[in-house]
């Protein structure tokens, strides 16, 4: 247990993202006030108009790095933070905006903005760990509320956060879902996706779409083979991997291999 005579100071930072990860924190209605009693919420723009100065004991970082200014800012955040934990798919894997990696970002800007020359942006959307050392990465788009609390609680207790890297299937079975792949023939990314959500999609008769990113030992080749048998086409396979964790290495490869093995068909 870290011995500190004052409450640990928490900071929440935002980079390119949808805000959902920090909102996950505000969504802990039952725990918010007890957490606030244990830590000093020293920097959290979304929730407070009294940002306190650094250094911070724990920084939660949401969002990916997409602009030159943010590149500078994340280095600052690292400097003023004892522990830096990234939260969510954007911060840990570049997020959906990393789809720009597969396109020409100038052209993207031109599609969205009348005057793309005003828009300062990098070619790629990169995770925080690509720029500064990260102490822990919490997955999910958005992260799971309980897991976020566990990360904070584990930090306070000095334990390794209980955030297992195994497949969604483990939670799916513990929850008592019947497998949608086996029972309904619905393609599911659960076997190659990291647990954490509590197997939500299968609980709603939907195949997992991978929003927690790749699990510890994903075997996409075998899964893709089976999902093709279930009727998925090459473009569908490519799209399902290339969404929320498009540039996470195993999913990037899964999409590429689907493309390669799909060549010649259709």
């Amino acid at each position, binding site marked *: 247990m870290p011995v500190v005579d004052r409450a640990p100071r928490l900071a929440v930072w935002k980079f390119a993202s949808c805000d959902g990860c920090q909102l996950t924190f505000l969504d802990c209605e039952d725990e918010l006030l007890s957490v606030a009693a244990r830590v000093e919420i020293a920097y959290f723009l979304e929730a407070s108009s009294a940002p306190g100065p650094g250094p911070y004991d724990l920084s939660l970082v949401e969002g990916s790095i997409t602009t030159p200014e943010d590149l500078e800012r994340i280095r600052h955040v690292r400097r003023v933070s004892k522990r830096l934990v990234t939260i969510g798919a954007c911060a840990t894997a570049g997020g959906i905006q990393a789809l720009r990696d597969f396109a020409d970002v100038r052209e993207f800007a031109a599609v969205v903005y009348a005057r793309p020359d005003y828009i300062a942006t990098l070619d790629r959307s990169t995770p925080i760990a690509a720029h500064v050392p990260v102490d822990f990465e919490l997955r999910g788009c958005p992260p799971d509320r309980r897991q976020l609390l*566990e990360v904070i609680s584990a930090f306070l207790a000095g334990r390794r956060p209980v955030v297992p890297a*195994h497949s969604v*299937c*483990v939670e799916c079975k513990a929850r008592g879902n*019947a497998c949608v792949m086996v029972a309904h023939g619905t393609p*599911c990314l*659960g*076997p190659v996706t990291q647990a954490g959500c509590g197997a939500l999609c299968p609980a709603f008769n939907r195949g997992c779409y991978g929003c927690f990113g790749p699990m*510890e030992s994903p075997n996409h080749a*075998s899964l893709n083979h089976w999902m093709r048998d279930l009727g998925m086409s090459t473009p569908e396979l490519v799209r399902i991997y290339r969404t929320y964790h498009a540039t996470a290495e195993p999913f990037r490869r899964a999409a590429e291999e689907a493309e390669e093995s799909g060549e010649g068909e259709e």
Partner: protein
Amino acid sequence: MDAIVIESLDPLVAELRSRGYAVVGPVVRERVIRFEEIASADRLARGWTDVQEPGRYRLAEGAGEMVFSFAASPDSAKRYTQPPRQTLFRMRGEQIEEAEEEAPRVALLGVRACDLAAIAVQDRVFLGGRHPDPAYLRRRQSLLLVAVNCAVPGGTCFCVSMHTGPRATTGFDLALTELAAPHRFVVETGSERGERIVAELPHRPASAEDLAASAEVSRDAAEHMGRHVETEGIQERLSAHDSPRWAQVGARCLTCTNCTMVCPTCFCTTVEDATSFTDGTAERIERWDSCFTLDFSEVNGAPVRGSNAGRYRQWLTHKFSTWIDQFGMSGCVGCGRCITWCPVGIDVTEELANLP
């Protein structure tokens, strides 16, 4: 007590409920036959059957008035004997307090011979060793087992090979055999508890024809096993640690853990720690784990079984071979769940057959 015949399940369900049991039986939910609490026998999956193959499960109609014309459901009794998550104890200050989670009275209606065999395996694991588990015992004691003798084995069943079925011979409170024309159930009792329940039901003694018909159901089921395993010499075959077969199946295996999760005997767990924000109470929770995860075998920063092949080999070898060394019995009861519910259809019987 001699076997009897009942015409309907309603009085049985009502009697069990009146004795304070939550009756849990097979119902159709989301196109799968699942075990769920029922208020009356109407909820049961009457008329339904299932088609099970490696990695594929489909519900089908056409069982008419029959209530139990299907094989194993994805749920086994494990959910009740060994719940997926349990709090072990809480520690506050210097005080350690066991979480005596109450064991609710549950009557499992429709467990099969393989499930009973699996419960016997779990009894051996949790009660038969040097450190018996009192919480398991409590749960076990409040579980009432109403077995059903299988009439229609599934495409992935192989209880005959594992000598665990299709007929329930022991370990039940009541065992039913469903007969057609006229629709009725032959009921055998396996415990005093069972006898007391049967005494309250409208029934008649089973006739010789009833008993013959009941035996015929099991004989017929035994002849229609979907799969087969050669158990002769199985331990020797599984000592082929370096067979190229492991790499082949490892290439298919997703290490998703589904097989171990649905397996009615897989008992492996891990422990999670938690602390409360309000008063710092520490809690330990035991939950299902699987030898297919990397954390399972991690020492010194690396898993002992890092490859898919290594993990698959652990599973198959443990189930069919080393279990015998550890517990004096096979870890596999032939229910076929791991075959049906493997998302990519890996078939243990095929893997075993392909070993040297």
